[in-house]
C-alpha cells in the first residue's frame, strides 16, 4: 500500500503564453478517494488531462506503480488501467448510447474475420449499468446528443466505472446530476474504493468532497496549496482554501454555511 498507483511530480503545462500549471505534484493510493479541489480556472482539468494522456506535460514526470512512464495517447493511459470522466464528457453526439458506452472496449463474438460486435450483450449491459445509476433509458439506441445533460453525464460515469481498472478519475462528475443520481454516484465511488481502486474526485461541492474523500488537495492559480488527510481539516477551512482565500458574497442565512 505504500507505492502510489499513479504519482505525478512537478507537472507544468503551458499553452502558448498561458501558464496553466506551474509545478503540481500529486499521487493516488489504491483504495483511496483523493479529492482535487480549487477555484475555477485553477488548473484541475488540465492537471487530470496530463494524468490521462490527453495532454503531454511541458515538464514533470509521471510514475505508474513506481515506474516512470510517458503517455503518448489516452489509449496508453487506459491500458495502464486509468479511466477518466472528462468535464466535457468525451462523447460522440451522433452515436447511440450503447456505442458510446462501449467505445474503445467493444465486446466481440467469434474470432478472426468473423469477429463481430456483440450488440445484444452491449445493449443489455448498458441498460443495466445506467439503471444502477438511477437512469431508466427509453432505448439504448437513442443518440447521445439528444440526451438530457444529466443523462449524458451518467453515461460517461457508468462507462468509466465499468472499465476503470486501477484508477478512476472523475472531473466534476455530479455537476449535472439530480439528487438521486448524485447520491448513487457518491455511493458508487465508495463501493469502488473498497475494491482497491484509486479514485481522483474533482468537485466544487465541499459537502460531496467531505462525504467521500480520504485526502484533499487544493489547487490555486496553477499551484498546489497543500494536501490534507480526512479529519485534519474542516469543511469551512476547505471552503476557504477553495475560494482562493477570498471572501464570499453575502447572502441569506441559509447559504451562510458551506455552499
Amino acid at each position, binding site marked *: 500500500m505504500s507505492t502510489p498507483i499513479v504519482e505525478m511530480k512537478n507537472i507544468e503545462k503551458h499553452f502558448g503564453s498561458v501558464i496553466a500549471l506551474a509545478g503540481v505534484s500529486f499521487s493516488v493510493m489504491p483504495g483511496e478517494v483523493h479529492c482535487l479541489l480549487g477555484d475555477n480556472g485553477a488548473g484541475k482539468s488540465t492537471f487530470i488531462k496530463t494524468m*490521462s494522456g*490527453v495532454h503531454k506535460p511541458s515538464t514533470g514526470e509521471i510514475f505508474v506503480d513506481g515506474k516512470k512512464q510517458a503517455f503518448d*495517447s*489516452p*489509449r496508453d493511459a*487506459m491500458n495502464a488501467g486509468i479511466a*477518466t470522466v*472528462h468535464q*466535457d*464528457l*468525451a*462523447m*460522440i*453526439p*451522433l*452515436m*447511440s448510447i450503447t*456505442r*458510446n458506452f*462501449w*467505445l*474503445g*472496449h*467493444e465486446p*466481440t463474438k467469434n474470432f478472426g474475420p468473423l*469477429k*463481430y*460486435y456483440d*450488440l*445484444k450483450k452491449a*445493449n443489455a449491459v448498458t441498460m443495466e449499468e445506467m439503471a444502477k445509476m438511477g437512469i*431508466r433509458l*427509453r*432505448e*439504448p*439506441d437513442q443518440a447521445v446528443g439528444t440526451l438530457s445533460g444529466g443523462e449524458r453525464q451518467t453515461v460517461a460515469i457508468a462507462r468509466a466505472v465499468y472499465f476503470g481498472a486501477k484508477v478512476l478519475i472523475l472531473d466534476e462528475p455530479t455537476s449535472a446530476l439530480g439528487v438521486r443520481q448524485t447520491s448513487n454516484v457518491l455511493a458508487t465511488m465508495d463501493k469502488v474504493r473498497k475494491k482497491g481502486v484509486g479514485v481522483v474526485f474533482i468537485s466544487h461541492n465541499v459537502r460531496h468532497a467531505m462525504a467521500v474523500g480520504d485526502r484533499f488537495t487544493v489547487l490555486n492559480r496553477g499551484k498546489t496549496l497543500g494536501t490534507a488527510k480526512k479529519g485534519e481539516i474542516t469543511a469551512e477551512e476547505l471552503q476557504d482554501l477553495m475560494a482562493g482565500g477570498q471572501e464570499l458574497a453575502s447572502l441569506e442565512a441559509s447559504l451562510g454555511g458551506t455552499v
Partner: protein
Amino acid sequence: MSDLAVESTDERVKNVSLISRLMKRPELGALAGLALVTIFFAFTADPKMFSLAGFLNFMTPASQLGILAIGAALLMIGGEFDLSVGSMVAFTGLIFGAAMVTFELPLYAAIIVTFMVAAAMGAVNGQIVIRTGLPSFIVTLAFLFILRGLSLVGLKAATGGSTQLRGVREKVEGSWIADFFSGEAFTPLFYWLAENGLVDTFKSGKPKVDGIPVEIIWFTLLAGVATWILLRSRFGSWIFASGGDSSAASNSGVPVRRVKMYLFMFTACCAALVAILTVMDAGSTDARRGFQKEFEAIIAAVIGGSLLTGGYGSAIGAFFGSIIFGMVLIGLSYTNIDQDWYLVFLGSMLLLAVLFNNMIRKRVTGER
C-alpha cells in the same frame, strides 16, 4: 443502431411505425430518391432502359463509381476526404499497365504490386494529414495534382512518349485470374438461357446479355462488406467515433490515427480496384483516366446520406447514391432530351432526388 426493441411500458414513448424507424437510417432515405429517378425514366425513356441489358448497362458505370463512392463514404464517415481518388485511378492504372506491358509481370503479380502501391500512397496521404493536422482537403488536393502529373510522366516513360499505354488485353489473355477482374460472370448460364429462349438475343442469335459484368459483382460485395464493417464490427464504431468527434474519440481510447490511416489506405485500394477493372476491360490506360471521379464519388456518398462533416453516413447509402448517379448519367441516352440540356437535366435530377428523399424522410419520421 440496429436493435429496434423498445421497453413498451414506458409512457414517455409514442408508438411509431416500423417504416418511420427504418427511414431514420441514412441509406433508406436514398431509396426514395432512387424511386423518384426510376419513375421519371419509366415515363420518359425508351423501355429498353429497363430491360436486362439496359439495366446492366447503367449498372456498369454505377458500379465503377460505386466502388469509389464506398471508399469515399467510409473515409467521410471517418471525418476525412480524399480528393486524390480520381488521379489515383490514373496512377494505379499506369502502375498496373506498366507492370503488365513494360515489365511483363504475370497478372497476379501485377495486381499485387498495384494494390501495394495504392496502399502505400494512401498511407502517405494519411500520414501527412495525421502528423501535420492539416485539413485532408488540401493535402489530398496536392496529391490530386501530383499523381495526375506522375501518371503523365510515367506514361511517357513507359511508352516512350505517348500518353496512352496499350496492349494490356493481349498480355492478360488466358489467365484464369483475369476472369475475376474483367468481362462478365456467369456467361455460360446466359448462353444456355439464350438457346432456350429465356433471354433476348440480337438478330445474330447472340444473347443480348452474355453475363453479369464483374464490376457489378465487386460493387455489391464491397457494399455488403463495408456495411458489415460499419454496423457490425468494432472497427466500424471507431470509424463513426473518429469522424463524429476525433478528440472525444481519442479521449475514449479509440486509436483515431490508426483508424484514419486504414481508411486512407482502403480508399486508395478502392481506386486501384477500379483502375484494374477498367484497364483490363479497356485494354489500355491513359493520362486522363478517372478524371473528376473523386468529385463524383463524393457526390454519390452525399446523395446516399453521408455528411461532409463526418460521423454520419452509410455504405448502402453510397450504393444507392451511385446507382442514382449512374442512372441519371446514362439514362439521358434513352430519352429524347437534347444533349445541350444534359447538364441542366443532370443537376435538376440530382437536386430533385435529394429534395424528395429529404422531404419523404421528414414526413415519415415527423421530424422538422
